[in-house]
């Protein structure tokens, strides 16, 4: 599947974000990358998507180094939706989704029957068919995000990477997008990797969670295993109560304080 081995990622000579990281993304599941700001989750995602060239190490897709694969071949297997994408003015939803067919097209074959079918299906799954001829910039936040996801769907890749797909969306739209992703995974068996900020989103919608801190994987596994009070202390620096979610039984985090605040108090106590 998708694997990172000994991966080191940096933006320039000085700032190494991720060092010698190893990770396996399980096939057919939704994986959530979580961690505090600056832990490198977005960087890791970009590295997995070949948007960033590794200093060292390798990212393997089905055993092949993604940097050696021709760009178009990779784009047919792996799709990425970066954070906060912006569509040019006047572009309609249908036109945007059609761009997702880029890796399948060529100068001669600009719009095969397959392309048309893929776009229509993508619009159907995301519920954007009625809005297909509206300009993207005239849509609401949730609708816009769904349009972009539809574009990635039209790419017809087995694996979809999403960088913070729910940040900046209001509550209803967040749920819209997360349910869509769940459906994609459940009905089509797609592997989804998403960077999320909200830990509860991760536990509710992902089957596999990877927690990062300062560029290292601290824990990875299913929600029950990963989301514990110790993890929250170590990765996020918060003290939290973990209770079973009333609907799903999965762990629900309720933070109540800062870890190091307590630590400071303890030191003051000890000093007395």
């Amino acid at each position, binding site marked *: 599947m998708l694997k990172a081995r000994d991966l080191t990622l940096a933006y320039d000579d000085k700032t190494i974000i991720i060092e010698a990281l190893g990770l396996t993304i399980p096939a057919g599941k939704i994986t959530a990358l979580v961690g505090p700001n600056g832990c490198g989750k977005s960087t890791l995602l970009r590295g997995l998507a070949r948007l960033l060239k590794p200093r060292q190490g390798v990212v393997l897709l089905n055993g092949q180094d993604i940097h050696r694969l021709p*760009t178009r071949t990779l*784009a047919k297997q792996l799709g990425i939706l970066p954070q906060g994408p912006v569509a*040019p003015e006047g*572009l309609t939803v249908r036109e945007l989704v059609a761009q*997702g067919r880029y890796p399948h*097209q060529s100068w001669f074959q*600009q719009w095969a029957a397959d392309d048309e079918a893929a776009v229509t299906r993508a619009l159907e799954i995301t519920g954007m068919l009625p809005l297909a*001829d509206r300009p993207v910039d005239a849509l609401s936040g949730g609708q816009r995000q769904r349009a972009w996801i539809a574009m990635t769907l039209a790419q017809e890749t087995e694996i979809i990477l999403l960088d913070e797909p729910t940040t900046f969306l209001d509550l209803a739209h967040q749920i819209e997008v997360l349910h869509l992703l769940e459906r994609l995974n459940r009905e089509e068996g797609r592997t989804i990797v998403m960077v999320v900020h909200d830990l509860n989103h991760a536990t509710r919608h992902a089957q596999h969670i990877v927690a990062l801190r300062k560029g290292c994987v601290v824990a990875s596994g299913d929600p029950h295993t990963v989301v514990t009070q110790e993890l929250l202390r170590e990765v996020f620096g918060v003290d939290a109560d973990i209770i079973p979610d009333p609907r799903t039984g999965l762990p629900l985090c309720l933070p109540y304080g800062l870890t190091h605040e307590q630590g400071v108090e303890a030191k003051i106590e000890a000093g007395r």
Partner: protein
Amino acid sequence: MTTEPWVIVRNAQLPISVRIDRRVPPVLAGVTLATLTLMVINIGVGEYPIAPLDVVKTVLRLPADNADYHFVVNVLRLPRMLVAASVGLALGVAGAIMQGITRNPLAEPGIIGISAGASLAAVTFIVVVRSASAGVVSLAAFIGAALAALLIYLLAWRKGDSPIRLVLVGIGLGSVASALTTLMMTFGDIYDVQRAMIWLTGSVYGRSWAEFWALMPWVTIFAPVALLLARDLNVFNLGEEVAGGLGSRVALKRGLLLLTVVALAGASVAAAGAIGFVGLIAPHLARRLVGPLHEGLLPVAGVLGAFIVVAADLAGRTLLAPIELPCGLMTAAIGAPFFLYLLIQAHRR
């Protein structure tokens, strides 16, 4: 089922299919027709007026009323018109590419430093080598453009190219070139300076077949290259990361597109001086007419560019006849209301 927004041509046997926005064929046909008509009218206008029908006959080498028509039309005015149209086409396409790569609606080939480099070379030749022929000035301009482009690329390159850095460096270099050009003009003879200024504003006055044939190869090669890269421009417009994720070889394609801009803009400046605003306005108009997809945008922007330059030339020749105003002045004159239009439009939103 709503009306299809696209016209699709698909062949059942061969794996060939083409898709284009349905607005494109009628718009393209309409603007091309308008441009050709305008060209015919423009040829017919002047100190020696010729009726449009006669113009067409003369161009097609059909017998017309007056034998003199052949000289006036085919030797004097036709090449000038063809140069104007080709320059407009080149600038329109180059402008559309610039706006696509930088995702900025105000980017145009004239401000990225290439014209400034060409202008510096040309003005230096005009003022220093005082009796330089038009052909020499043209060549100097082209070399100036190429050198400027090279310098800009080298200066902006830092672990890869970035369109933003390229444009900004171009603006910086353009300012320096501008200052040096002004310097040249302070020291020259006043008549040379005037000649230089006319060259700077851009004009097709006196352009002959020589200029046309010098320009043709560049336009014939690079305009189609741009069209071939239209799909890449589409995905670039979505953002560099999305484009990469969709499998576009961003660095390579962008390099090719930039090369196309330099070739088209450089050849245009060499042929007709620094005609501004065509590369800015034509893509905007085209976008309003046929939408942002580049398969249709590039050709329409090109033909609109040709239309604008031919119209500007016509206006320049007729407004204050018999004085001829350079077409570059006319295009600059519509620049001001265009900016106003942009601002009003944005305000209304």
